[in-house]
């Protein structure tokens, strides 16, 4: 199947000052991945590892330092972020931002916010547009009585739902969600997750779903990408990765869940050792980024930076000493 979206060696560096010198912070440091039509991909990794930066590159609200973003096989990475607002692909890639308060116009009511999306992206006006707005509000479980409120008159979770309604109202081919459920209570979260599932079944919508909530990723996503300091360290079908994580970082993440690793308690060998994460500023390319926190790290990890390699079963891992994975036949 052709890819809907593809990232090729995608990079974004930010210049920062350190000890009086300008150096480069490698927020996204050479990422390759793709999303198929109708696929839900989860993106996980600790705070500051580059998830939002990656998302902004993909939705073209931030320009890459290097690499390509291809959408339906066309390079949209070269479209300047400012020009993207008018680009024909705009309607097909929509985004739900991490902080709903930050991303809503304080002078627009919820209705106006969603309606603007309908007008700009779908070219609809009048009664037809109004119907679309109310339909989207219904989808996200936002009571119609709240549509005429301004952001400051809404609760955190209500604002989050306005942000989601605005993004899905144009029925994009790809919806990128950055921590969409963080502000939602469990009940609303259930409504939203079941909605995404329905949009996927009915409209073949694809999702990139950024979340710290591994329970939600496990339930929602077909595939998962695990990021660590600007790189993808493991990728594969969600069930397989959760059942038998190969990368030491993924193992540590999953070991921290209440259910823990399949087949019993996490052993000390699965937890990260103390130690601070390495700096994302001009990192040594010949050194594994997890070294120093990795329970397995050996000499080779300080000499050769591991690359993402196929390990079968649709899985990839960037580690010299991954956990041995037995492929479960689906």
């Amino acid at each position: 199947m052709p890819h809907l979206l593809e990232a090729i060696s995608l990079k974004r560096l930010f210049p920062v000052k350190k000890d009086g010198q300008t150096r480069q912070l490698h927020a996204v440091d050479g990422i390759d991945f793709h999303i198929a039509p109708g696929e839900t991909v989860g993106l996980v990794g600790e705070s500051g590892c580059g998830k939002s930066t990656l998302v902004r590159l993909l939705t073209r609200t931030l320009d890459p330092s290097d690499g390509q973003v291809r959408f339906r096989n066309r390079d949209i990475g070269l479209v300047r972020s400012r020009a993207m607002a008018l680009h024909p692909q705009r309607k097909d890639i929509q985004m739900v931002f991490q902080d709903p308060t930050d991303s809503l116009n304080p002078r627009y009511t919820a209705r106006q916010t969603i309606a603007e999306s309908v007008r700009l992206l779908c070219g609809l006006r009048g009664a037809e547009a109004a119907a679309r707005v109310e339909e989207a509000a219904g989808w996200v479980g936002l009571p119609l009585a709240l549509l005429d409120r301004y952001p400051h008159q809404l609760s955190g979770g209500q604002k989050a739902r306005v942000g989601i309604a605005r993004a899905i109202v144009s029925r994009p081919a790809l919806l990128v969600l950055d921590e969409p459920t963080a502000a939602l209570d469990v009940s609303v979260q259930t409504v939203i997750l079941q909605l995404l599932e329905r949009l996927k079944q009915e409209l073949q919508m694809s999702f990139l779903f950024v979340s710290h909530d591994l329970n939600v990723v496990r339930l929602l996503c077909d595939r998962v990408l695990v990021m660590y300091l600007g790189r993808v360290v493991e990728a594969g079908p969600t069930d397989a990765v959760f059942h038998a994580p190969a990368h030491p970082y993924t193992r540590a993440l999953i070991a921290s869940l209440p259910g823990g690793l399949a087949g019993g308690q996490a052993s000390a060998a699965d937890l990260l050792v103390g130690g601070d994460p390495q700096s994302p500023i001009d990192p040594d390319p010949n050194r594994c980024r997890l070294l120093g926190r990795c329970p397995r790290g050996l000499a080779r990890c300080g000499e050769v930076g591991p690359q993402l390699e196929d390990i079968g079963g649709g899985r990839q891992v960037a580690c010299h000493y991954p956990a041995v994975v037995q492929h479960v036949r689906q």
Partner: protein
Amino acid sequence: MNALSNPLLEVDRLAVEFRTRGGTVRALENVSLALAEGETVGLVGESGSGKSVLSFAAMGIQDAAARITAGAIRFAGQDLLAKKGAAMKALRGREMAMIFQNPRVALNPIRQVGRQIEDVLARHTDLLPAARRARAIECLAEVRIPDPERRYAAYPFELSGGMCQRVMIAIALACKPRLLIADEPTTGLDVTTQAAIMRLVRELSAERRMATLLITHDLGMAREYCDRIAVMHAGHIVEVGPTEALFAAPRHPYTERLIAATPVGAASLAELAAIDGNLPDLRRADLPACRFAERCPRRGAECERPLALAPAGASSATHLIACHRPLTAAATEARHAAFA
């Protein structure tokens, strides 16, 4: 433990309304909640139930459209509602601090984050400037911001969402307040960072007897860190009790539904159950005495009678519910054994 004998914060039959063009939103009604020193109380409940409105009221920060129409708020015996702007401002930051739900908006976008911590220290402590800088860096390290010396000089837009959130937590904790109101402090943070921050809060509660009101949608976290839990629905507190009792045997039907909607352990999305219905429109003139009644499977004729929090049983003076047809302790205990 009787929290009510000598509370640090006491919210007493509070009512808050918002005037809007579409009518008056009755956001809080008859809300009573007390926090003792050193105690951590969880405040949970559906989105829009009034958790943030309650915390803003306690901090004395309010929307211009807000009216406190009844009740009182006392902090260490002082009447907060009688305090004027400057007196309230002096309390905020030093004695009581709040972690807001929307971190990026709460930070000053054009000031280095380390300086923002120093500003708080300058206002509320007598540390000298040089010591303030060192303390600010220490605060950043305490919330596990890597490379805190460098991050001291960062502007909010240069930080990730989770880092901004942690800076806000650092600001709130910088002066070691006596009361912390934390509105969804760790959502969006990974479990390890979340645990580190909650450890920090716990240390301050143990060492300095800080009281914490922890607002969260994460019932697992509430259960782990809170001594007591208060459950809100549509501007009412419907149940409050010691954490273990409340989880083991929720007595209000709403609490029970809330616990059942938690995804931990679910095998598929289809298995998750959203709570039926929506919160009632809080502008309605005919809001029922029990605002959950219209969604409640146990509703009966008596549910139209006036309602207030009352002890859930003869044996439990600390477990209160506002319900005419509560679940029996034995029935829910059996059902929730699985969740534990």
